[in-house]
């Protein structure tokens, strides 16, 4: 039941942000749309444990997000520098790292965080081993230190 309430909240704010009009007619259309979408979701029976992914302690996410933005800025500058320095400045490698997260959602967060920072891309995930392509050896070493992994695992702990 609380899941349905969450869906209603998300869908309603999405409707209001994209329309921005508060005339009764349009609000009615919005309400009808929300009912139809939720009916479709129920019919698809896609309400398993992970279709509603906000299961991690939500108050820790902003801290991780801020750290992640910092990482993105730093690695962006690094990769942009190497674009201008040219081919000789990069040393592509493929390597594997271990993900210590227990739940799938946290693993997805970790793999996506790796992909989102320029300089590293997750190629595949098998059980708890991630295959990663890095643009430089330095970026690979940085990731192997496992700070990102540790931070995502810390998010998971309740």
């Amino acid at each position, binding site marked *: 039941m609380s899941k349905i309430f969450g869906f209603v909240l998300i869908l309603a704010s999405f409707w209001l942000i994209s329309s921005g009009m508060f005339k009764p007619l349009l609000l009615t259309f919005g309400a009808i749309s929300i009912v139809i979408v939720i009916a479709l979701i129920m019919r698809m029976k896609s309400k398993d444990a992970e279709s509603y992914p906000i299961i991690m302690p939500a108050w820790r996410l902003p801290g991780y997000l801020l750290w992640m933005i910092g990482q*993105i800025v730093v690695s*962006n500058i690094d990769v942009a520098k190497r*674009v*201008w320095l040219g081919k000789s400045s990069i040393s*592509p490698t493929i390597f594997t790292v271990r993900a210590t997260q227990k739940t799938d959602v946290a693993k997805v967060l970790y793999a996506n965080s790796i*992909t989102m920072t*320029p300089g590293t*891309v997750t*190629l595949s995930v098998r059980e708890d081993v991630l295959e990663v*392509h890095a643009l430089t050896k330095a970026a690979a070493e940085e990731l192997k230190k496992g700070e990102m992994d540790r931070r995502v695992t810390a998010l998971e702990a309740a």
Partner: protein
Amino acid sequence: MMEMALDILSWFCIVVGGFLGITGAIGLFRFPDFYSRLHAASITDTLSVGLIIFGLVLQSSSVLMVLKLLLLLLILAYTGPTAAHALAKTARQEKLKPVLDDNGEES
């Protein structure tokens, strides 16, 4: 005075974002193989888009506009890594050979 400062900050963000976008595009051509080009494209996906949208947020006149811009950023933040991973994984499965630095030490 305040408005002037906001304008300067917003233009700084938009110009730097645009410069990073161009850098990403140039990297797309300069890097040697598919996988490393993917890294260049992810500059455009992340900081470039983020800075441009932040610059536009500083310029916008209503809360609704800010919310719409942030929604745009959220959607891009979801689709960027998803597309990058889909491309990389498909290339890997189809056995596209990467250009590696460490004498072909490849699993």
